[in-house]
C-alpha cells in the first residue's frame, strides 16, 4: 500500500474535519485515492465536482502520485 499526504481546502477541509490527512491506496493512483476518500467520507459524493492537484497542477484520475508529492483536493471553485 502507498501512503499519500492529502491537503484539503474549502468544503473538502470541512468534510475531512482537518486540513491534512494520510490516505492509503494500492498504487497511489488518483482514481484509487478518490475511491478511498469517497468510501471513508461519503459526503464527497454530494459535491458538484472533486478535482485533484499535485503540487500546483490539476491531474487526471489516471495520474500516479510519486513519492513525496503532495495531493491537493480541489472542491468546486468559486472565486470572482
Amino acid at each position: 500500500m502507498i501512503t499519500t499526504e492529502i491537503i484539503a481546502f474549502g468544503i473538502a477541509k470541512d468534510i475531512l474535519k482537518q486540513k491534512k490527512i494520510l490516505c492509503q491506496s494500492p498504487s497511489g493512483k488518483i482514481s484509487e485515492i478518490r475511491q478511498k476518500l469517497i468510501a471513508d467520507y461519503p459526503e464527497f459524493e454530494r459535491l458538484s465536482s472533486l478535482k485533484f492537484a499535485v503540487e500546483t497542477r490539476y491531474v487526471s484520475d489516471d495520474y500516479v502520485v510519486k513519492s513525496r508529492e503532495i495531493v491537493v483536493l480541489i472542491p468546486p471553485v468559486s472565486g470572482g
Partner: protein
Amino acid sequence: MDAVALHTTALPTTAIEAFVSTPTSGGIVIFVGTVRNQTRNKAVQHLFFEAYQPMALSEMKKIVEAAKTQWPLHKIAIHHRLGNVAIGEAAVVIACSSAHRQAAFEACAYAINTLKETVPIWKKEFFEDGEVWVAAHP
C-alpha cells in the same frame, strides 16, 4: 506591481488600471467583481475567500498567458482578494489594455469566466443563520 496577485486588504483598483495603461493603448476594460448583499434572495452579511495560494497564482498566470496568446493585448492584470470581504467591496479586479477595444473586452470576459472555472479560490457566504461554501453542491 505583478500582473497577478492575491491581496488580504482592499484591492488597489486605481494602481491596477495604471499598471495596464500604456502609451499605445486605446482601450482599457476593467472588470470589478463586488460582493453582493444577497444571493438567491437571502441576505449576505459578508464573504470569506480562501485560496490554495501557489496554485491560484499559477492558474491566474496561465489565464494571463492564454489571453495574451488569443488577443493582441498590451497588458493584463488579475488581482483577487482573500479573507473576509465586506458587502460592496471588490473581490476581484481584472484589467486589460489593447490598441483597439474589442480585444480588451473579449480578453477581460475570458479572464473572469476562466478564473471562475479553474482558479482554486473558494468563497464562503455568511448569512444570519449560517454559512455555505458557494457552488459546492449541485
